[in-house]
């Protein structure tokens, strides 16, 4: 079996380091206003490309930049500048769906991945795009059999990408789905003038709607469901079939989500892929991964269209149904690298022995720990309150200013 590449979403520096820490093989991110998460992740700019490339190269993972909105004439200079920056700093590829970007990538010798926004749904389309790209992200509406047919045809026809290697096929394995075919949606623009295809989706499909009978005025709420808001895609319970389908790259959605989302989803899929390959993939592990995935942002899970379902399963809630939430408690005040011990000062609330704690930091990413014993102000204790200093061993370097959160059961 071929080992797929695990591709994690990055919307902040915290999530970049979280993805690395969780074992991603590659990450993808967007800059400025020419990516599909423009409105929700405005913090990464063109100046950050160099640092992101450097961090990824240091950790031996690949970095791809999304440049996948609808493009207008006034976007050309910025798009060109972004691609040149990518080329200069060694970003591994640009993900795009606009022909102008394809042409610029060719001009600058920048490797290209065809975005899911191009809705590639058959082998002939793959064959069309292959001479200009290295990876093709399939539309999210295909069944696993359709995907397997495409990957086997790539082999049979020996379809090569621009680099001379076989063209790679990428598919989404986890994260949000929407009511429109792979993102081609007009609803947000229609109602709020905010184009989803310019990265400004206001997610009005995620709300509840009533159907009104105009003759009687009767209002119907359909089965108490959010009929335009599908549950999130989750494939961890059929990861073995996804790998058997010959997909080269497994992509996790969620650039606008938190660093702990990136960390948990990447870690679970890392473990699941490795388990399938080493033969230890089993129902107990699946149950554990599902319970971990439920703790971070999700709208409930279904297997997407992979298993042949033609209609979406609709969410029953307006937002996330994550079973856990984080509560801020402490800030990192020191890290002792020789003895690998971290010191945090409690600034809010308290923590007890056995709490699950989440560490977040711009250059640290995200990591979870459970302290079986607490050292409070230098001596053993079972509870630490505001003003107390707690210390605990931690293998990798933490930085002053890193934040510590306690994970608690969500009320939602």
């Amino acid at each position, binding site marked *: 079996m071929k080992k797929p590449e695990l591709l994690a979403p990055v919307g902040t520096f915290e999530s970049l380091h979280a993805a690395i820490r969780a074992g991603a093989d590659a990450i993808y991110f967007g800059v400025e206003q020419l990516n599909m998460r423009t409105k929700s992740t405005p913090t990464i700019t063109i100046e950050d490309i160099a640092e992101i490339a450097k961090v990824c190269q240091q950790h031996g993972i690949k970095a791809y930049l999304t440049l996948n909105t609808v493009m*207008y004439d*006034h976007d050309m*200079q910025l*798009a060109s500048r972004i691609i040149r920056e990518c080329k200069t700093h060694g970003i591994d590829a640009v993900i795009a769906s606009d022909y102008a970007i394809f042409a610029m990538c060719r001009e600058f010798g920048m490797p290209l991945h065809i975005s899911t926004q191009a809705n590639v749904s058959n082998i002939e389309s793959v064959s069309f795009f292959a001479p200009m790209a290295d990876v093709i992200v399939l539309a999210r509406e295909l069944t696993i059999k359709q995907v397997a047919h495409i990957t086997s045809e790539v082999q049979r026809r020996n379809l090569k990408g621009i680099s001379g290697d076989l063209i790679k096929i990428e598919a989404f394995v986890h994260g949000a789905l929407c009511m429109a075919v792979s993102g081609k949606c007009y609803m947000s623009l229609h109602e709020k003038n*905010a184009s989803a295809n*310019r990265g*400004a989706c206001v997610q009005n499909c995620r709300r509840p709607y009533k159907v009104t009978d105009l003759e009687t005025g009767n209002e119907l709420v359909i089965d108490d469901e959010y009929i335009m808001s599908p549950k999130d895609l989750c494939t961890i319970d059929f990861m073995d079939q996804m790998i058997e389908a010959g997909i080269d790259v497994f992509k996790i959605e969620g650039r606008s989500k938190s660093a702990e989302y990136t960390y948990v989803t990447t870690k679970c899929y890392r473990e699941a892929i490795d388990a399938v390959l080493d033969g230890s993939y089993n129902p107990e592990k699946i149950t554990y991964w599902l319970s971990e995935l439920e703790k971070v942002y999700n709208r409930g899970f279904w297997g997407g269209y992979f298993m042949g379902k033609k209609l979406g399963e609709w969410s029953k809630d307006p937002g996330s149904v994550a079973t856990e939430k984080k509560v801020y408690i402490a800030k990192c005040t020191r890290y002792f690298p020789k003895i690998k011990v971290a010191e945090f000062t409690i600034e809010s609330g308290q923590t007890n022995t056995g709490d699950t704690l989440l560490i977040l930091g711009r250059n640290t990413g995200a990591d979870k720990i459970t302290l079986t014993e607490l050292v409070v102000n230098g001596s053993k204790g079972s509870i630490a309150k505001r003003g107390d200093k707690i210390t605990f061993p931690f293998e990798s370097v933490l930085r002053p200013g890193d934040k510590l959160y306690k994970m608690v059961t969500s009320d939602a």
Partner: protein
Amino acid sequence: MPKIIHYRNKCIGCNICYESQPEYWRLSRKDGKATLIGAKLKKETYILEIPECDVEASKTTAEHCPTKVIKVSV
């Protein structure tokens, strides 16, 4: 005097302000964002005084902006 205020950093260059009031807006070819013609820069914000007769149309433009980075102060 009424003013249009443009928080340009968060502009996504969607083009709607230019479509709505081409006399006040253009799209920068350099960075793809909207530019409020003739505005003065004050702490990352662009400000332009406008005549009373243009307030209503400018408010409509502000309303249409998907990222709400255009404000009209009267």
